[in-house]
């Protein structure tokens, strides 16, 4: 039996990061495999956490600081796990690492981005703006190292950035690499993607210009978002003074996501507050099936939101969303449950509370049994592999952190057998 103190963690979001840092601080060696060029996952894209309304970067920064000071955490960004062979205590993990085209000599000075003539769709902001092909995902990104999206480079370009960089940090000769990592335990913390709400015909996403998703709203409200935190609508940049939130966009719907995505009620309540704080003369309306704010603090947050007379909570299913093409306004048709009638209302912008889709959905990986919804079937997962957070069921950050911490204890058992 190999004495292998390595815990390999797939996913560098809050769950994976927590597992890595906690494991490292307990004397294990943690290796994170992250698909993005930065760590932090979904949390990094959030403006504020719900109910506490505090910035997620605050917790990320502490975790990064713990990584910097510990030395037992290694991480691969732009990386993907291809295969996991072996058994508990002796896994052999194959990781594919895509080239960053910027090496560790990068100082983060921004010269490459300034020199770069090419643009790319900024997926960090859900395509609401563009970055240069040479870019840093955001100012507090960790690692603080630029990256080049080669697919966005203008044909035969690849010069201005090299010339601008005084530090020999740009290297287009980098190739995709395959790394084999031996690990005693594997933590699955791949997180979630936002459900593709354009699949929901009646909600107008993709056709009605001023219908956006909750995650887009998060970026729109963030000081480092596409509008520097100004909440304006996409069609004409108009300030959003009258906003609606449509809950369960995809969730609790057997044609889309049969489960409840846990976080969307709280997220919409929070986002209604973003708007109300930014524009004191604004109004917000939330259309819901049930208001799900379970827990110690969460319900008090709901009560606080309810105290605002300019936020209306309406139990009702949205039947249809259309556009007034002349004004860009959004027309929402709702089945009001209590009035047993269909009502129409007009808004500046509508936010769809889109659900979580597990990142593993449709994936085939040795040793991991994945349900049709995309969750890890924990009763069928191989010994020594531990699923955490949203890989098992939709949860919020707090529960994901609890789960990740528990997974480290189980990893210790696998490693120290």
């Amino acid at each position: 039996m190999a004495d292998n103190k390595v815990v390999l963690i797939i996913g560098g979001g809050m769950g994976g990061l927590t597992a890595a840092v906690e494991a490292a601080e307990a004397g294990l060696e943690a290796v994170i495999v992250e698909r993005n060029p930065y760590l932090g996952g979904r949390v990094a894209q959030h403006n504020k956490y719900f109910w506490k309304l505090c910035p997620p970067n605050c917790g990320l920064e502490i975790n990064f600081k713990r990584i910097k000071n510990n030395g037992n955490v290694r991480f691969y960004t732009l990386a993907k796990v291809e295969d996991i062979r072996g058994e508990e205590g002796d896994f052999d993990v194959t990781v594919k690492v895509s080239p960053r085209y910027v090496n560790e000599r990068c100082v983060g000075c921004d010269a490459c981005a300034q020199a770069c003539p090419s643009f790319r769709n900024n997926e960090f902001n859900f395509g609401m703006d563009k970055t240069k092909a040479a870019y840093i995902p955001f100012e507090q990104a960790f690692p603080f190292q630029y990256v080049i999206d080669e697919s966005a480079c203008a044909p035969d370009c690849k010069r201005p950035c090299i010339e601008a960089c005084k530090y020999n940090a740009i290297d287009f000769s980098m190739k995709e690499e395959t790394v084999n990592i031996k690990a005693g335990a594997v933590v699955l913390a791949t997180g979630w993607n936002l459900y593709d709400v354009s699949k929901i015909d009646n909600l107008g996403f993709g056709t009605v210009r001023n219908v956006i998703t909750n995650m887009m709203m998060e970026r729109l409200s963030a000081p480092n978002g596409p509008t520097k935190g100004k909440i304006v609508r996409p069609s004409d940049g108009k300030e959003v003074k009258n906003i609606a939130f449509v809950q369960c966009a995809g969730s609790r719907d057997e044609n889309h996501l049969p489960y409840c995505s846990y976080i969307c009620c709280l997220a919409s309540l929070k986002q209604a507050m973003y708007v109300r704080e930014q524009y004191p003369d604004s109004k917000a309306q939330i259309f819901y099936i049930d208001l799900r704010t379970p827990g110690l603090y969460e319900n008090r947050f709901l009560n606080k939101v309810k105290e605002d007379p300019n936020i209306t909570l309406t139990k009702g299913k949205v039947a249809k969303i259309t556009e007034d093409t002349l004004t860009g306004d959004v027309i929402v048709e709702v089945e009001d449950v209590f009035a047993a009638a269909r009502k129409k209302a007009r808004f500046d912008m509508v936010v769809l509370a889109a659900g979580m889709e597990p990142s593993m959905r449709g994936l085939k990986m040795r040793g991991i049994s994945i349900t049709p919804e995309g969750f890890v079937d924990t009763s069928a997962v191989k010994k020594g592999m531990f699923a955490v957070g949203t890989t098992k069921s939709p949860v919020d950050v707090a529960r994901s952190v609890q789960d990740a911490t528990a997974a480290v204890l189980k990893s210790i058992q696998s490693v120290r057998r």
Partner: protein
Amino acid sequence: MEKRFGVYICKGCGIGDAIDIERLSNVATKDMKVPLCRTHDILCSPEGVQIIKDDISREGVNTIIIAACSFRVKYDVFDFPGTITERVNIREFVAWCQPPKTDDTQSLASDYLVMGIIRTQKGDLPEPNVLENLQSTILVVGGGIAGMTAAIEAANAGYEVVLVEKEPQLGGFANKLYKKIPTGYAFMEPLIVDVDIEKTIKEVEGHPRIKVYKSAKIERTEGQPGLYDVTISRNGSSETLKIGAIVLATGWKPYDAAKLGYLGYGKFKDVVTGIEFEEIARKGNGRIFRPSDGREATKVAFILCAGQRNPEHLPYCSSMCCASSLKQARYVRGNPDATAMIFYIDIRTPGRLEAYYREAQNDPGIMLTKADVKGVSDAGNGNLYIEAENSLLGEKVKVEADLVVLATGMVPTTLEPQVYLDRLTQEAAKGDEARKAYLESTPKPEFILNLSYRQGPEIPSLEGAYGFADSNFICFQYETRRTGIYAAGSVHQPMNMAEAQEDGAGAAFKAIQCIDHVSRGVAVHPRAWDITFPDPLLIRCTACKRCTEECPFGAIDEDEKGIPYYKINRCRRCGTCMGACPERIVSFKDYSVDIIGSMIKSVESEEEEFRIIALACENDAYPALDTACINRKQIDPSVRIIPLRCLGGMNLVWVADALSKGIDGMLLLGCKFGENYQCHFVKGSELANYRFGKVGETLNKLQLEAERVQMMQVSISDYDKLPDMINEFVGKVKEIGPNPFKGF
């Protein structure tokens, strides 16, 4: 260690363009008399780092001052084990936020370099403080599902475990349940399954590394992580055990239904709580016989959120009752002729539990309606009416039932002692007599841990946590204000059984991790790498008790003369005691009143120049400032930023010293405090604010304007606003005018 200094100045990233490097080198070599000062075009490059490494090996340099970028970056290349390494941030804080090559820019860089050199001159290389006879046994308090899971998981990881349960048997509330919700992937038939708690109990009781104490209580918990002496009493005798760390898993009690008279509890025999309903189902082996006349109930009403989400009772949601009630509706439906009616505000079955709800919706024998239940009344025929408004059945309805089940909420076992102790503190503040009167008139509730801590015997209460042993950190779930004690299960937060199992394992891990850290003399979260520790010069202590009262973690006890006694393994190294101490006697090897004070005093403040000192929390304010500079926002060049481990370490003497020396203003940048605080040391910024309240006095004595010192609550995301906030403050100070003490 005899220090051999080396100053290394980087010219890259625009530093060389903004600052006259030769003049800056002269500051090091001439003013500060550091003989060795080198510059490099790209200090972080392998070639640059090699220069430093060569000096370490050839010249014996062991005290390294790197004037380059922020400590937040290039941490891995500027890592020289065994040395004192100080990072002086002249990239973000000078080159990136100031116009190039001005006198102001130059003197800013020079001041930062001087401060950095002073820090290394005054500081020492720390060595860990590892206490002797450290223990690694884990004590789990509470033998419910969370506690048993914690015990099993810790034992399976190789640790000895002591499990203390106050009841004669293990199992907690799980013992009372008739069935549970299946935990597998899909919530399909069977929709109720055996609890099978006996299996877990057997595993605990048969585990070679778990020692179980039943019908037992903790009489006293003395000491600190790694060195607890825990006295356990059972059957009239007591025993003291050596313990390393503690998992608190004492669970919950149902909310007192007697307070829910409006729902008929206590008035009608056939109004029962959820837990009582479980007992009814157990007794009838699935058949539901109602208490009043023993008839089989066939129309059972469930009132959800009974006394929950209600400011008069429990303002929170216990998060497990919706699913529990759906499960209990299944018991009723064991009789195909019986119906269950569920009255809810919202059905909360988050995540995959939604499928469990859907199964209930598909059962024609389960009626679900949103409703505001206003009361329960006598239907006259032995049955009861549920009176509800705003329901899906109509505006105002009366629905008949032959049994009513109230989904009462969870009250943490920690609540009662907390309420008692908080009131005791309030009364004691009024004087000895009020304290005595309170003690005599108020029955003492059962304590749980009985800690022999200066700050009290239990986990302290937290605003908004309603008695739960939680710390309201989203990212850091296992923080408590008592180091080495980790809460799990429904004493931690309201949760269901499956969640309590994960939580039990999580808390057990943190206990293991804590034991590991104290064995190496390293702090635990959030400074989980720190080997420094506070080392007070007690001969100068006046026993003022500020440190013992203020320490957010209760790390400091007192001897009989009131002299503080540090229990170092409880300490989180935030430096709040250092900030609290009026005698300035608390020091860490690399962090002390003298070190920071000397840095502040080194800032020259000439007649015609304004100088402002900003003390910034290094966890949030500092990164926010860094980010502002990464965005090339200009910060007024009169401001010198000094990071603190936590603003709680801010000592008022710094303010007095700075202003009496001619510094024109001071900014204190800390985290949000109060409800939904963001301080990583829970109370640090709040205590800084408390001290800030006394700054007026100090300034008054100096006959200076109080507005010269300001505290700001800053978050890490305030990087877009922070430069403006600072610049505005500087503007105000300039309006007040220069400090008249300049030049003295």
